């Protein structure tokens, strides 16, 4: 049997997914990056630095919090929240950015670029770029800039240049296209910090490894609190980095069920969604083969979600592999379901979750009531919802007057 924990292979393939589908200009760069990453991960000094910044700068470990009121509210499974929203910058994104900027420094790169959807990865990248004194350019879809104004301002405060991308649909995929165009044009000095477990090899594996701190901590914390492993893990998925980070350290534990929650937008049947696994087919985009939302001609179609961070027509290749292997169950949650879970979490726990994380909570709302009280369920609360105030108010018909 293939070992799910030992992927990808030397060519960056998770089964038939992943790979290095990039223009020739970028091949030598990603080969160098891979070599540097392979060295760094075995280098105790690199690991020491990473651990230092994760502890003293990011604020790790993040708590594993017993959500007593949500547990009572749903009346079933015992619910734990992995509090990634308490990290510096308010989401899991910084775990990866710290890792990549340390690599950038090792490689002597002097300029940072990134793409962002909801702006959380952009903010995390701008943050580490400021901390390490490097100029930073963030590409962001013009539609996303509209709905995520507070994050745009945060990035600017942190000294980043935010470049609006109006091509295509003006969302995350277009921002990624533009970041790749920047990268092929400024190869010598530039390090591209990809924000999710996608892109050409080694990014999917590298980002996963930097995010796996979430799952490793969860494992130790639940063993300490409950004396055993959880029965199920639930996380939302756009590209899929917070989910991969939580899931990966548990892949070999067959008794641990895993549920990935895609954005169902207005419903899969409407075609207006961002659920690549449930509503897409395999294809090649942004350097890897994975499930993509596309038409019959192979043109990438628009993703739709209330949550800008899930609004991507693809998904990390390792998720595509785990989907086909049946190791992880992938479901989808609609905008309306996510909004309801968002409000429920605010009122029951006094925690305002990101709209992304609210998708995971909505799946919990469906599952937890059907499960016994001794079922341990860990939900990744991947980010906080401050950035979503305007969108949520708009959808709920409220105003701030």
């Amino acid at each position: 049997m293939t070992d799910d924990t030992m992927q990808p292979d030397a060519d960056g393939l998770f089964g038939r997914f992943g790979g290095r589908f990039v223009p020739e200009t970028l091949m030598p760069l990603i080969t160098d990056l891979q070599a540097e990453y392979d060295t760094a991960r075995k280098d105790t000094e690199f690991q020491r630095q990473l651990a230092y910044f994760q502890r003293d700068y990011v604020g790790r470990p993040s708590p594993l919090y017993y959500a007593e009121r949500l547990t009572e509210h749903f009346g079933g499974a015992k619910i734990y929240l992995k509090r990634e929203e308490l990290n510096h910058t308010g989401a899991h994104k910084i775990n990866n950015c710290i890792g990549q900027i340390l690599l950038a420094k090792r490689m002597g790169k002097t300029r940072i670029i990134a793409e962002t959807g909801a702006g959380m990865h952009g903010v995390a990248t701008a943050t580490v770029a400021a901390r390490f004194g490097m100029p930073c350019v963030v590409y962001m879809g013009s539609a996303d800039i509209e709905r995520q104004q507070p994050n745009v301002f945060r990035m600017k405060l942190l000294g980043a240049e935010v470049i609006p991308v109006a091509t295509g649909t003006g969302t995350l995929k277009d921002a990624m296209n533009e970041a790749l165009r920047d990268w092929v044009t400024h190869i010598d000095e530039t390090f591209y910090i990809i924000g999710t477990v996608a892109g050409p090899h080694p990014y999917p594996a590298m980002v996963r490894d930097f995010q796996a701190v979430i799952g490793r901590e969860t494992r130790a914390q639940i063993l300490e609190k409950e004396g055993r492993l959880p029965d199920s893990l639930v996380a939302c998925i756009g590209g899929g980095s917070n989910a991969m980070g939580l899931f990966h350290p548990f892949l070999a534990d067959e008794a641990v069920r895993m549920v990935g929650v895609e954005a169902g937008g207005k419903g899969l049947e409407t075609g207006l969604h961002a659920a690549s696994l449930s509503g897409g087919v395999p294809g090649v985009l942004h350097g890897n083969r994975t499930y993509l939302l596309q038409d019959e001609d192979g043109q990438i179609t628009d993703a739709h979600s209330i949550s800008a961070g899930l609004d991507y027509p693809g998904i990390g290749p390792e998720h595509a592999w785990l989907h086909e292997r049946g190791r992880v169950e992938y479901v989808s949650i609609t905008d309306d379901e996510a909004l309801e879970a968002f409000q429920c979490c605010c009122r029951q726990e006094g925690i305002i979750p990101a709209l992304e994380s609210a998708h995971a909570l909505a799946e919990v709302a469906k599952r937890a009531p059907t499960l016994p009280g001794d079922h341990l369920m860990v939900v990744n609360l991947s980010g906080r919802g401050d950035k979503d105030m305007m969108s949520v108010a708009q959808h709920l018909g409220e105003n701030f007057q």
Partner: protein
Amino acid sequence: MNAAKESPMNDATRLDERFTALEAEKRPALVTYVTAGDPDFETSLEILKGLPAAGADVIELGMPFSDPMADGPTIQKAALRALRGGQNMIRTLEMVHAFRRQESHTPLVLMGYYNPIHRYGVARFLKEAAHAGVDGLIVVDLPPEHDDELCLPAREHGIAFIRLATPTTDSKRLPRVLENASGFLYGVSVNGITGGSAPALQDVERMVGQLRKHSHLPIAVGFGIRTAAQAAAIGRFSDAVVVGSALVEGIESAETRRGAVEAVHGLVRELAAGVGRAGKP
């Protein structure tokens, strides 16, 4: 020179014949790029059919893709115009068919990204492309690491797989790039996207010289070449000069369909005169 690392094609192809003929004429080839279906199917077909008479020696025809990550704004917009006009892979292959009914000597190369081919199905695509009279493929996001996907199957259909060598392709990397290359080599003159700044002549000449040491294939140079003068200058040391974005801009800025056809053919005539002056020693 090293022994050719590229495996020879079985029969002399249109590409081989064209480059051999031009070698006898002692001038470089003019390679022109337009996107299939830009601005619409009919106009695009008329542009395509008139290219050989205007002076194009080799034709690159773009397969439009929604997310062309190696292209600048000009070719991005061309792809969107074509897609909005209903262009798809079936219609692109139809265009090649229609072109081949009137023109059997000018090589035609399809250029684009992998996903539309992947979606169409590689086997189906290659069978239909060969039948339509496609001579080669340039697929920007398929490096040699993925030769099993399309490059090697294409060869079985007699379709060349044209490789890009870039300023980042160093001597360590080059053998890998050349391993399964056929047709011609496409030297990308600058790091960056299509339609960018003009390359520095001495850098391009050095790159071409480097490629010649390692390959017998004809060497084309592209990216950032816009004028007859540039084409003439680069054509003095290369085997072919590729012009794309400048032609596509002619389509973009034309006010009528007739204007688009005339803009492209007019510039091709100028460029052809340019490469005609670029006699080689």
